[in-house]
């Protein structure tokens, strides 16, 4: 059953058509990857789902709901969480506080309750904390719990961003290049995490990733994008061997070499 459906989506920035009449659907429970050359429009697709951009044409449906009727901050409430390609964390807050913001959509207390710290708020705070601690345990972030984001290395931030997205308890998780900047070892961790996210937590994952090794290990289906339009779609193996994908994305001259080097990273 398809959870997320894009139909004929188009978006232009001035003269640049970033996404061109794209249709795709992500099924509940699968890990779906978007790949494609730089500037193909992958992040733009994410940004449209997050409703930072409004497509000029086409529709985006999530679980039967028309996302275009929603504003950006309502998307999380529908159960969609995301990470960002270039990391957008709350820099002047600790890891814990960042994750607790992820719990925002689960809050129930009213403003007076919060102001006077009365009523159910205390129990609710414990609950949020509990949920967040589970994510911290899952992603091995214990040592960083009370650290300010501003002082963390790139790779840890990537994980914190994933954690923050998980803290929202989403149904659909959008990951924009989760493994970029991670070492081989960390990429391996990422691979298992994504596996668990799908299997244990039952969260559907849509991700953008250039590391074809990771893609082929964790993804059920892959869609290759170029110049905003669909180039190929299928299993990782099918897409990787698609001539147009090799030509535009993986590289012809270096097919074997790159694919090897990349492939062997995981």
């Amino acid at each position, binding site marked *: 059953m398809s959870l997320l459906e894009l139909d004929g989506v188009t978006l232009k920035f001035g003269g*640049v058509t970033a996404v061109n009449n794209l249709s795709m659907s992500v099924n509940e429970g699968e890990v779906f990857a978007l790949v494609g050359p730089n*500037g193909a429009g992958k992040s733009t697709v994410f940004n449209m789902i997050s409703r930072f951009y409004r497509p000029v044409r086409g529709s985006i449906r999530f679980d039967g709901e028309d996302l275009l009727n929603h504003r950006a901050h309502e998307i999380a409430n529908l159960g969609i969480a995301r990470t960002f390609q270039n990391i957008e964390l709350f820099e002047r807050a600790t890891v814990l506080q960042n994750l607790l913001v992820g719990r925002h959509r689960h809050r129930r207390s009213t403003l007076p309750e919060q102001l006077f710290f009365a009523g159910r708020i205390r129990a609710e705070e414990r609950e949020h904390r509990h949920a967040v601690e589970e994510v911290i345990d899952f992603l091995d972030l214990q040592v960083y719990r009370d650290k300010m984001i501003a002082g*963390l290395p790139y790779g840890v931030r990537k994980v914190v961003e994933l954690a923050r997205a998980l803290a929202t308890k989403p149904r659909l998780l959008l990951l924009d290049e989760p493994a970029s900047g991670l*070492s*081989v070892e*960390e990429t391996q961790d990422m691979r298992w995490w994504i596996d668990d996210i799908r299997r244990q937590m039952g969260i559907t994952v849509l991700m953008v990733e250039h590391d074809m090794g990771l893609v082929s290990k964790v993804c059920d289906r892959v869609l290759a994008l170029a110049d905003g339009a669909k180039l190929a779609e299928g299993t990782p193996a099918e897409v990787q061997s698609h001539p147009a994908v090799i030509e535009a*994305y993986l*590289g012809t001259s270096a097919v074997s070499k790159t694919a090897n080097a990349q492939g062997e990273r995981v």
Partner: protein
Amino acid sequence: MSALLEVKNLETFYGPIMAIRGVSLEVQKGQVVTVLGANGAGKTTLLKTISGIMDPEKGQILFEGDPIQGREPHQVVRRGIVQVPEGREVFPLLTVEENLSLGAYTRSDRAEIARDRDMVFSYFPILAERREQEAGTLSGGQQQMLAIGRGLMLRPKIMLLDEPSLGLSPLLTQEIFDILRRLNKDEGVTMMLVEQNAAVALDLADQGYVMELGRIVMADSAAKLAASEDIQSFYLGHANEGARGERRWKKRKTWR
């Protein structure tokens, strides 16, 4: 042969946090040296300290025999050291073209600059197409290309590259490394390369260092490093060589 760049016993702090704990290394002229290391090992900090973006607490950095530690970064750049920073630090409100021309800020030979810009455009045709676009609206990978192109515009003696392949497509990663290889071989540009994609990095490099928690824990020729078991299992991820494979538990690194 005296080293072009020599780092001796460097220590750098972020306030109370000691990020570089006595690092020494050498980069010979014409060499490509790669620094490998896990997250937070201090690679970026090391490069920033060399460029003068951060001040070291102790130690020396010698470039062509002269100490340059603690200098203002622009003075370091003027000596011919350029850094391509991690995380595409472009000038977001300036156009692609303006970003590139800033790369040549220290130069004044107009004709040469124009030639180099055309060269960058030939490496990355998409940048030529988008020369009037504000850099902040480029895609992540396009910004990375711009950052690298801008570094090339400086005609450096030594390039410090911090994860140049970050966010680039496999095809482009390959191309970038081809370009770097050519620059090194044809123009003799020395390079210090920090890269998570260790396979490509070791392939290009002559010499390699491995950093952990602010220290250098291994140093050898790139070929020897590539052959070492630890490197293979942790940085190259050779599954069959047995470190982790399809298992989920991790083996401890021997140098810890």
